[in-house]
């Protein structure tokens, strides 16, 4: 996971765990500093004088009077690397999160930064927002007492657009989410330009709860559907929200149900990543050979993410991996393992990518529990696609750009999906022509 991707996963979690704090400030600082020194994939520490960082920040850690102050020092240290996947998961509340640790409820809609405004990009079918009549394409003018302008002003305007998008989303989620059952007032602007004030209830997140080790609980969702392309071909759409092992069985069933489709669209928009090892299993549904999607370069070695062709159905029958056209949809909130998958499949020519450039935060990472109880997420590998493209800091660049527009959202159109379906049509026609 990347830092932003880790943060996104954190926001997707129901609630942060609360445990007693052990001060151990200097010990905690030393462990975090040493772990990164010893495991960073680049012995040159991305050009940062790591010893100087220690000399500068260790006294501040020593002087930290509260867990929050210590975390600020640690985050400062992690930030010096200027790379993704270096993050801290607090074991308990600190000043920065006090009162906002319970993010288990949400009103049932998502947002994106579209044409400089916060816009509703998706409305959950059964959520409070849908019941209240919220529609995609509506502008979010305020959340609680905070105006949209103030939310965006809180985001560092000096960030690259790629990261600004992520940070804006996080800022919105920090206000939208809250305790299950609580209510939050919004002001929207609808498609006709009318001001729409609504108070929405935050409800439990849909999906199967999954708790993996020190990570907070996540809710895993996978949907699939069969749809028609513009020219009447049969296509399948599969979307899931996070790379957790619980996805595997549902994904297998979804593919089984779409084996006769003319093409499959895999929607990874908003998917921040998860367990990178799953790349090998999921890619195997679309590859007949053990092809490497990319390589994780660590300090000691290089590990290949090699597809494991999936030759058995959920029912135990022998099958062939899906060989038809595969389109992958991505956006600015597609991160980490999702990027490695999309970039890897693109690099071997197995998929065509549609949408918007991804997060560019694609460093495989692991965890380390620190003496104060917090969990350090730290990158120990660098992912490079099969064609040698490094995704960190760049992201996956779609073959066909299809940015969100408010006009399309209001009209109920999905430009990225439409382009993907058109491409499937062309592929089907090409296949017919070649016969």
């Amino acid at each position, binding site marked *: 996971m990347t830092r932003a991707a880790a943060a996104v996963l954190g926001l997707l979690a129901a609630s942060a765990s609360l445990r007693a704090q052990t001060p151990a400030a200097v010990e905690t600082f030393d462990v975090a500093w040493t772990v990164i020194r010893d495991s960073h994939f680049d012995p040159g520490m991305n050009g940062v004088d790591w010893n100087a960082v220690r000399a500068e920040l260790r006294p501040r850690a020593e002087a930290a009077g509260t867990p929050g102050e210590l975390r600020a020092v640690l985050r400062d240290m992690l930030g010096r690397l200027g790379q993704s996947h270096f993050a801290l998961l607090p074991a308990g509340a600190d000043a920065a999160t006090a009162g906002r640790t319970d993010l288990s409820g949400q009103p049932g809609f998502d947002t994106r930064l579209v044409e400089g405004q916060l816009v509703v990009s998706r409305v959950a079918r059964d959520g409070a927002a849908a019941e209240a009549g919220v529609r995609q394409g509506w502008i979010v003018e305020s959340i609680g007492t905070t105006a949209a302008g103030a939310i965006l002003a809180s985001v560092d305007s000096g960030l690259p657009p790629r990261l600004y998008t992520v940070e804006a989303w996080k800022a919105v989620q920090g206000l939208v989410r809250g305790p299950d059952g609580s209510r939050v007032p919004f002001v929207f602007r609808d498609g006709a330009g009318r001001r729409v004030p609504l108070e929405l209830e935050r409800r439990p997140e849909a999906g199967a709860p999954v*708790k993996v080790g020190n990570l907070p609980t996540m809710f895993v969702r996978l949907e699939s559907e069969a749809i028609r392309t513009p020219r009447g071909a049969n296509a399948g759409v599969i979307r899931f929200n996070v790379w957790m092992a619980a996805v*595997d069985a549902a994904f297998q069933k979804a593919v089984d149900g779409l084996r006769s489709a003319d093409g499959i669209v895999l929607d990874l928009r908003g998917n921040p990543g998860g367990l990178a090892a799953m790349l*090998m299993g999921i890619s195997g549904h679309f590859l007949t050979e053990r092809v490497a999607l990319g390589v994780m370069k660590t300090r000691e*070695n290089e*590990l*290949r993410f090699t597809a494991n062709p999936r030759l058995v159905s959920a029912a135990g029958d*022998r099958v062939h991996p899906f060989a038809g056209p595969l389109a992958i949809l991505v956006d600015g909130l597609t991160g980490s393992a999702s990027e490695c998958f999309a970039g890897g499949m693109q690099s071997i020519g197995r998929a065509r990518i549609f949408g918007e450039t991804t997060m560019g935060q694609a460093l*495989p990472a692991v965890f380390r529990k620190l003496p104060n109880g917090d969990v350090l997420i730290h990158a120990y590998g660098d992912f490079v696609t099969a064609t040698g493209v490094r995704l960190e800091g760049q992201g996956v660049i779609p073959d066909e750009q299809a940015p969100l527009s408010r006009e399309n959202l209001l009209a109920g159109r999905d430009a990225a999906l439409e382009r993907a379906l058109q491409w499937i049509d062309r592929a089907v026609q090409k296949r017919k022509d070649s016969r």
Partner: protein
Amino acid sequence: MRLFRYWPGPAALVLVLTAAGPAPAQAPPASLPDARDLMARHVEAIGGREAVFAQSSTYAAGTMSMPDVGLSGKLELYAAKPNKVLMRTIMPGIGDFEEGFNGTVGWSVNPLTGPTLLQGVQLEQKKFDADFHAGLKPDERYESITTIELITFDGRPCYKVRLVRPGGGEDFFFYDAKTGLKAGTVGTREGPMGPITATSVETDYKRFGSLLHPTKITTSVGPQRIVMTFETLQFDKVDPAVFEPPAHIKALIK
């Protein structure tokens, strides 16, 4: 009796970390003990060749944890002569993992990569590592066995033995200079992601019947760490049917 060894799969590679590798070498003594004597001394220390050879199967149960990740799950290991093994792990939040070899077929099934039929080098390695009485016949298994130094391994003086596998590749075994018990291994194996070098430290030997067995094996791969802890160890009670490949693997064999 097969001494359990764990080569981390993809889940571990993505989820764990922390190394406890050998410390810098100490000054070598004037002469080093013969490697075969060290291996024989270990067999004697755990109960003797006859007692080891008398066992035809083992079942071990306990936990597998990845402490840095905060993961802990149930672990079951089955082994039987001549070369059958099965390891089942249930990791909360991730799922069920199974790796096995029935003397002919090697496999792994897990929710990260799906069912896999081992082939080529991976299958050969599995066969090699599955040898139930591996510790009793080093000369049959390795082309050369040499004691190379006395070093500090896991914080204690240990003899380091280099074993060259047929066809190349090396394993390193470490024997506690004081007790004679095996302290750990370092080896490289081909996994689904490529070659992986792992360091295993074997500690907390306890007596089960007439044999001593390490009840804690800590395996490190780079910054990742996996700890296997055994609470139960039984001999000669394994049902051979347990080594049957699961249905999804049988479908791959067709």
